[in-house]
């Protein structure tokens, strides 16, 4: 039988993200896949060049709705790198708590989405119900559920007083118990194991060759975690374990994320216990001196890199963001290709794609068009795009 192309997306009920996957299908088996991104370009980096550093913090937070603290943290890290001032220790601890609470809520969100993708909506509802606890704690601590506005250049904007710290600890105890229950459920529940075991295999050598990051790499046995490899904030003072699994399939990614949630809970507890007293921010000048800085951290999905070049004014000259999904996207065609004993069914495509926890609104920053067949590349200016696509 001949090979048939099945286009999935950019708008498709099975995939929540605007991305086009063309699956080459032979009967019921997927024998190859091709990805196309670029449906969600928002021009955030360019917008950042017209705004001051303080205003950019709030744009950076809106790069991703789920890991907002991470992007704002990376931008402050890059800017502080240029300014070259030490920030107070207490601010480092509060940043760590913020980043970890963010990770807990992102991983729980993903667990719900994954359960939904395999058709297990009961688990999806339960996980999202329990995720509300951590959302409420974040709201209590930062003032809002989703856009946190916690980070600022030179520290953090909100302190954690004693009574708030106690409330966070109380919720962490409750969540710890719940997450352990979900781990047991994922290991014992036959329906989850049948849908996830041996699906979406990404071998260790492929993960290294394709530069996979975050839980996707760690589920293939690559112990790469920026928190451990290049400690920032307070990660060098708090002991934690880099979770790795070596079954390389969706189950491994599921378990890596659940175990990381448990690790995050223990990091939050430890950070609150060890938090020194003192100021939470220092005043920094509005004008950033000439230079370039890099900020990197481990987002829930993998490594985030922000690069800022300053030219001695209030506005950055260039701001570049590398979101983790961009690094992980390349492994999708490998996961979706049947080879030898490894067979990919069409029904496994949504969960395989969801298993890297894709976030395309962070990723899409296409700046060059390349014609693959001829190798020609070009850039479109705004007026050209307007002429082609805007109809008045």
């Amino acid at each position, binding site marked *: 039988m001949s090979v048939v192309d099945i286009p999935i997306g950019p708008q498709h009920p099975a995939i929540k993200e605007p991305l086009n996957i063309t699956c080459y299908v032979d009967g019921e088996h997927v024998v190859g896949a091709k990805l196309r991104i670029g449906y969600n370009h928002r021009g955030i980096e360019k917008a950042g060049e017209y*705004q*001051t550093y*303080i*205003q*950019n*913090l*709030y*744009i950076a937070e809106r790069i991703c709705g789920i890991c907002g603290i991470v992007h704002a943290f990376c931008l402050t890290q890059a800017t502080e790198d240029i300014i070259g001032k030490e920030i107070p220790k207490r601010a480092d601890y509060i940043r760590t708590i913020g980043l970890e609470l963010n990770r807990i809520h992102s991983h729980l969100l993903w667990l719900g989405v994954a359960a939904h993708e395999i058709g297990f909506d*009961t*688990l999806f509802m*339960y996980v999202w*119900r329990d995720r*509300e606890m951590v959302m409420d704690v974040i*709201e*209590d601590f930062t*003032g*809002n559920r989703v*856009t946190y*506005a916690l980070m*600022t250049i030179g520290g953090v*904007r*909100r302190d954690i007083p004693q009574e708030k710290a106690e409330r966070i600890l109380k919720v962490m105890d409750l969540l710890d118990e719940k997450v352990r*229950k979900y781990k*047991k*459920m994922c290991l*014992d*529940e*036959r329906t989850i194991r049948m849908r996830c075991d041996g699906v979406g295999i990404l071998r260790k050598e492929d993960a290294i060759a394709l530069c996979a990051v975050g839980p996707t790499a760690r589920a293939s046995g690559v112990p790469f975690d920026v928190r451990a490899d290049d400690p920032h904030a307070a990660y060098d003072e708090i002991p934690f374990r880099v979770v790795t699994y070596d079954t390389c399939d969706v189950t491994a990614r599921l378990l890596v994320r659940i175990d990381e949630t448990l690790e995050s809970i223990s990091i939050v507890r430890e950070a609150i216990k060890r938090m020194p007293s003192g100021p939470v921010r220092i005043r920094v000048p509005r004008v950033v001196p000439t230079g370039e800085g890099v900020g990197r951290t481990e987002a829930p999905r993998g490594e985030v890199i922000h690069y800022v070049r300053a030219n001695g004014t209030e506005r950055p000259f260039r701001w570049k963001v590398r979101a983790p999904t961009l690094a992980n996207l390349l492994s999708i065609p490998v996961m979706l290709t049947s080879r030898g004993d490894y067979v990919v069914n069409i029904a496994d495509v949504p969960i395989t794609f969801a298993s890297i926890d894709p976030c395309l609104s962070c990723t899409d920053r296409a700046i060059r068009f390349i014609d693959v067949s001829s190798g020609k590349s070009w850039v479109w200016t705004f007026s050209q795009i307007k002429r082609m696509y805007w109809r008045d």
Partner: protein
Amino acid sequence: MPIFGDVLKTAFQKRATLLYPFEKRDVPSDYRGKVEIDYNRCVGCGLCVKDCPAAALELVTLPSGNKKPRYYLARCTFCSQCVESCPRKAIKMTQFYELASYNRRIEVVEPCGISY
């Protein structure tokens, strides 16, 4: 099927959602809701206007010659940067969050203190 125990337990629990218009959520004491500007304290320095990432504040000149910020509620992203930038502590965030309206003019707070 380890989930069945949970399903049974949940069936007899209170519901997790609220019946929104009738039951309201409690927000934390330092929640970032609608911005309130105390125009008596404001000296019109324009720092809030400069720092606002969403251009929700605009400096207008009053007939008396003083400059004061005009606040566009529909543009506001509730980041509370203006609260932090204000040297006179004239701006504060309230706990008020039900801000939807049919009339865009209601959502502009004029410096005379009256919103119309």
